[in-house]
């Protein structure tokens, strides 16, 4: 077995009972990833470290940074990059690819329905309250059909793998999912740092993301525009994802504009300010939230948006990607209903399961949650960013009681989930190559059809034992290889 035969980098690697993305289950090593393991193991640890240091310096010189704001100033940090790739077999990828497409299809069907006929609510597939009283529901979108009937043109699906090796969707990101720039840049970095590891390995390419995105965006242009001008709308250099905005604009060869570069004329068309005067813009990939898009339609205090943009959008002179109001589809409460919605709209079984979710607004869900409180993670549905979460296995008796009281007072505000034992991936650490928990965010682009970038962003929790992969909390990223 590879583990025993290993002599170098992977010699002391032990996944500690978790599912490992490179080794598989402890008693069933993955055959597909065996060549990667063998090659990786031939690289001595010191050399691995030396190449990692080179890669890090390159990232710094390249300025692949995200901005962390403290009270005092803004600091550009590089997103830590781990040189050991996460490997996905062709068979596993086929599951993820079809599962993500299914997810995108149901999200678009759902959005089209709630802003249109409202069938799912009428048929009782989902409580109307969750939809129409959702803070991300945009009544302004009612009765408007966006180009091609698509809402979530760019969608990110956060997927984890449990201890048995089964994929589960943790969260949908149907607003402005970020991270795809790291997918492509990590690959470029690996190609420079580890050509020997990658040669003839049969890794599916990721470098055509920009092309696919541009093609999908161009297909949204108003009819009779044959050479559409696409632009990427960014909040500007102070946005923490600005690096990604640059990346996408470059890859597509389109201007990166800010709100102040755009103007809506009396004809309800969108123009950008150029050195030759105003030039029309037909499709906008906006990386600005709904709230800030247009002070006339949404938050009146927004300085980032473009006054009149939403009116132009509704008139059909400009297309927006993603559509306005997609946030209702990636909400935690709606997430719990996704498996049912897949059956309702598509008459299919979910290809990728949710993490088992108990809906406390329903009697059985509440009862189960109350009975197993110390084993479950209880999440309020309205909040974002991890607020108000009670992690049963790590909570004190008082915290559990407080949680029980809140649940009983307002059950509809909560869902509960078991703690997932996230899979691990070999990761270079101070102590040598160690298992660290990872997740995966594949990116799907939908124009006339849906395409999923092979792989996606693998985030890794660099601290030992941690399951928090967020970059602001010690997370890094890895190259993600989908084998042919």
């Amino acid at each position, binding site marked *: 077995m590879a583990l025993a035969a290993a002599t170098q980098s992977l010699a002391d690697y032990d996944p500690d009972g978790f599912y490992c993305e490179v080794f598989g289950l402890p008693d069933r090593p993955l055959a597909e990833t065996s060549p990667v393991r063998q090659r990786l193991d031939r690289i001595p640890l010191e050399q691995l470290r030396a190449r990692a240091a080179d890669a890090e310096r390159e990232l*710094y*010189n*390249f*300025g692949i940074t995200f901005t962390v704001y403290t009270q005092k100033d803004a600091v550009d940090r590089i997103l830590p990059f781990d040189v050991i790739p996460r490997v996905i077999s062709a068979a596993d990828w086929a599951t993820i690819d079809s599962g993500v497409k299914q997810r995108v299809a149901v999200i678009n069907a759902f959005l089209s329905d709630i802003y249109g006929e409202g069938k799912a609510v009428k048929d009782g597939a989902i409580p109307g309250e969750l939809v129409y009283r959702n803070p991300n529901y945009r009544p302004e979108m009612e009765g408007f059909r966006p180009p091609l009937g698509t809402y979530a043109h760019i969608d990110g699906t956060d997927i984890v793998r449990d201890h048995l090796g089964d994929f589960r969707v943790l969260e949908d990101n149907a607003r402005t999912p970020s991270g795809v720039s790291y997918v492509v840049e990590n690959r470029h970095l690996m190609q420079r740092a580890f050509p020997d590891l990658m040669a003839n390995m049969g890794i599916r390419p990721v470098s055509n993301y920009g092309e696919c995105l541009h093609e999908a965006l161009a297909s949204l242009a108003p009819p009779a525009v044959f050479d559409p*001008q696409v632009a*990427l709308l960014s909040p500007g*250099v102070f946005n923490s994802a*600005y690096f990604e905005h*640059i990346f996408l*604009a*470059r890859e597509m060869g389109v*201007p*990166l*504009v*800010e709100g*102040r*570069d755009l103007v809506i004329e009396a004809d309800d068309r969108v123009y*950008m*300010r*150029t*050195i*030759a005067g105003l*030039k029309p813009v037909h499709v906008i990939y906006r990386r600005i939230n709904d709230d800030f898009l247009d002070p006339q339609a949404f938050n009146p205090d927004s300085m980032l948006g473009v006054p009149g943009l939403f009116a132009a959008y509704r008139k059909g002179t400009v297309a927006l990607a993603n559509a306005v109001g997609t946030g209702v589809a990636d909400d935690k409460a709606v997430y719990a209903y996704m498996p049912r919605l897949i059956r309702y709209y598509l008459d299919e079984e979910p290809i990728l399961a949710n993490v088992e979710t108990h809906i406390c607004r329903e009697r059985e869900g509440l009862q189960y949650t109350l009975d197993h409180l110390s084993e479950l993670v209880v999440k309020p549905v309205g909040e974002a960013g991890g607020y108000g979460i009670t992690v049963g296995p790590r909570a004190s008796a008082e915290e559990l009681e407080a949680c029980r009281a809140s649940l009983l007072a307002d059950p509809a505000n909560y869902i509960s989930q078991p703690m997932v034992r996230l899979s691990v991936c070999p990761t270079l650490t101070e102590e040598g190559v160690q298992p660290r928990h990872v997740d995966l965010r594949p990116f799907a682009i939908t124009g006339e059809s849906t395409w999923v970038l092979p792989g996606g962003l693998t985030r890794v929790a660099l601290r030992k034992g941690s399951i928090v992969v967020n970059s602001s909390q010690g997370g890094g990223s890895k190259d993600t290889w989908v084998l042919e």
Partner: protein
Amino acid sequence: MPSGSSLLSRYAEAIYWMARYVERAENLARILDVQESFSRDSRGSHNWSSVVALNADDAAFYARRAEPSTEAVLDFYILDESHPGSLVSIVRAARENARTLRPLISTEMWINLNTFYNRMRSLRSEDVAEERLARLCATVKEACQTHTGITEGTFYRDEGWYFYQMGRMIERADQTTRLVDVKYHLLLPSPADVGTPLDISQWNALLRSAAAYHAFRRMHPSGMTPASVSHFLLFNPFFPRSLLACTEALDDTLTQLRSTYGLRGGRSALETLDELRAVLRDSTIDAVMRKGLHEFLDWMQTRLIEVSLALGEDFFGYPPAAQAQKASG
């Protein structure tokens, strides 16, 4: 050839300023370098306050320091992040513009400026001590030249390229006027010193700091007078840092930009440039020196600011008749 343009005004402005800042950094390194050799040659009478005066930085300087000691002036012009005219701030400004321009410029241009900035930022006060200054200045000049070389070799030749060239040329023209001013106005020798070995060696150093010594010698195989050096740096049409060469390049670039892309803007800048070009072509150095070289250089600087503002109004979206020169140091 393309007609029409879709270059965002904001980008045009950022390209123009990126070029100006890099050129400014290079010239500041040249000025510090030549000052350092002046102070080495001087008989104890010279001090660094002339650089402060030259850049019209008295208020900013004395708000921060008490005395124009060598250390204080070097720190002010190299390391002081609170001073927009320090090398570190200038390079940061170039880098910030490049950051805005990332969608447009080549990756190599960006990496070069990002690395340059990181290097400047890591300088400590011991790195700028007088005895190491010449070497530091050489490093900065080389980094700037690397930037221009990378740009020449990788930057796509669309409208942006024209704005890049204009930024470089207008800054270089302005800086050449300051370089000449350093010697002529601020180190003005007493009549008795004119033509003495010290005076000549200072003009010599000035030429060398502008990388003009050999070119000058090709024109003037023997002799060196204040008039002949000034004439060369201001009116020589073939020396790339001369005021005339820069002005002509600026004029030609703007003319080409307008015709290639069918732009209506730029007319008033062009009128000013045509006028400057005629003045530079027709003036004799003797007449200029008689009327006052410093006053002439001052007038040129003012007209160049007008050109910059006119470009701003026509292409960058500045409000008409802006009162202050935007974003300049």
